[in-house]
């Protein structure tokens, strides 16, 4: 009993001690300018730290939204590039670059996300999350930030099927950037991310490391889109053309975000070419 009352008195004196200290500190913070300032700046620094951490975590939740927004912005910027527009007036293009009335928008870019893909065998397709509802049509080109991806071959209401570059039937008009000589890109189904450039005559000078870009003759892709670099080239006996291996700039197997290209002048071009 005695030890219990001892314990109780120790505890109650501790409580009294705490009470008096809290009381003193309240008086200190209320009554002293310096301590008040220190207390509130410290607590602000602390709550600021907490708020910053919370914001960092919350950023992850808005990341998907942010990616969508950035893709839209990217598509807008792509549309402002020279190869997406048609120069109507043969003036100095540098001086009039920003003047919209001199240009006709030729290509339109729509952001999309890859929802399914398979890289197995020699007929590789992927599925994107945009379809008829988003004005995707068959035979529209698909690119990523740093290279070609493929061509739309089938369109559903919400999704579209894309034949990738790594497909037996792919044939895309391309050229060597330094001398403008053009051929076509095919894939023979051996190495992923390596395609072949065909129909370059052997009198043309090529080097390993030369950049391959789109030619712009196909009406699907704008001109000067980067494709890849020459990895290796050779001429087979009795053949008049090079066999060029091109290392793609983008890794198709790890892609996530793409842009679908809409050629706004396609109908006009088609009509024109049909009449010939």
């Amino acid at each position: 009993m005695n030890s219990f009352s001892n314990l109780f008195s120790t505890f109650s004196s501790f409580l009294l001690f705490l009470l008096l200290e809290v009381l003193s500190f309240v008086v200190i913070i209320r009554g002293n300018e310096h301590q008040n300032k220190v207390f509130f700046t410290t607590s602000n620094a602390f709550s600021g730290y907490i708020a910053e951490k919370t914001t960092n975590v919350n950023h992850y939740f808005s990341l998907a939204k942010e990616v969508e927004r950035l893709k839209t912005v990217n598509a807008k910027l792509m549309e402002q590039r020279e190869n997406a527009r048609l120069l109507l007036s043969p003036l100095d293009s540098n001086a009039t670059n920003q003047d919209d009335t001199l240009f006709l928008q030729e290509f339109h870019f729509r952001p999309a996300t890859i929802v399914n893909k398979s890289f197995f065998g020699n007929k590789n397709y992927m599925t994107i999350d945009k379809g008829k509802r988003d004005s995707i049509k068959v035979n529209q080109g698909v690119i990523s930030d740093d290279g070609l991806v493929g061509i739309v071959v089938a369109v559903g209401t919400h999704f579209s099927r894309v034949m990738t570059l790594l497909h037996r039937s792919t044939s895309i008009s391309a050229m060597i950037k330094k001398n403008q000589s053009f051929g076509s890109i095919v894939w023979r189904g051996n190495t992923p991310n390596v395609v072949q450039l065909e129909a370059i005559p052997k009198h043309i000078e090529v080097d390993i490391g030369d950049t391959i870009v789109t030619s712009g003759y196909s009406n699907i892709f704008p001109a000067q889109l980067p494709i890849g670099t020459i990895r290796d080239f050779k001429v087979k006996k009795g053949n008049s053309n090079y066999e060029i291996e091109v290392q793609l700039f983008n890794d198709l197997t790890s892609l996530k975000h793409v842009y679908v290209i809409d050629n706004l002048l396609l109908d006009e071009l088609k009509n024109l070419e049909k009449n010939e």
Partner: protein
Amino acid sequence: MNKLVTNNIIWFVLLVLSQGLILRNFSEGVGGPFYFHVFLYPLFLFRFPIGTPRYIQLIVAFFLGMSIDFFYDSPGVHAATSVFTMYVRPLVLNAFEPREGYNINISPTISQYGVGWISRYTGTLLLIHLFIFFSIDAFTFYYITDILLKTASSFVISIAFVLMTLFIFNTKQ
């Protein structure tokens, strides 16, 4: 018992007045972190009768601190420090307990326990008191070197005042 209460009330009034009206004026020093405060009023906490119930000790310490704060215009700072010093006092008393124990009903004095004991006891408590005071005064341990320097410089002058006062009023009770 009644005499002890009157005695302590007189000590309380005299120490608060001497601290608040006289010693406060010595607070300025040579400048920088080396300025010193003369702290005499903690003597009241040191020589408070050991046998008093804890809650009375703490409340009296709180009022002592508040009275000093009244003169120093620093509400709460001395009160928080005094309550803390009073709360840890039993620990210091336990640490320096003489073989024959304490006479719990009277104030600890030189004549009872000797100069060595009273120096160790008051020295330790005064150090604690000063360190806590300057910590609360700065209100952040960012200036820890400043706090330690102030504690050291104030300790030298304050312990002299405390021991001097104890010698002068070394009454045989």
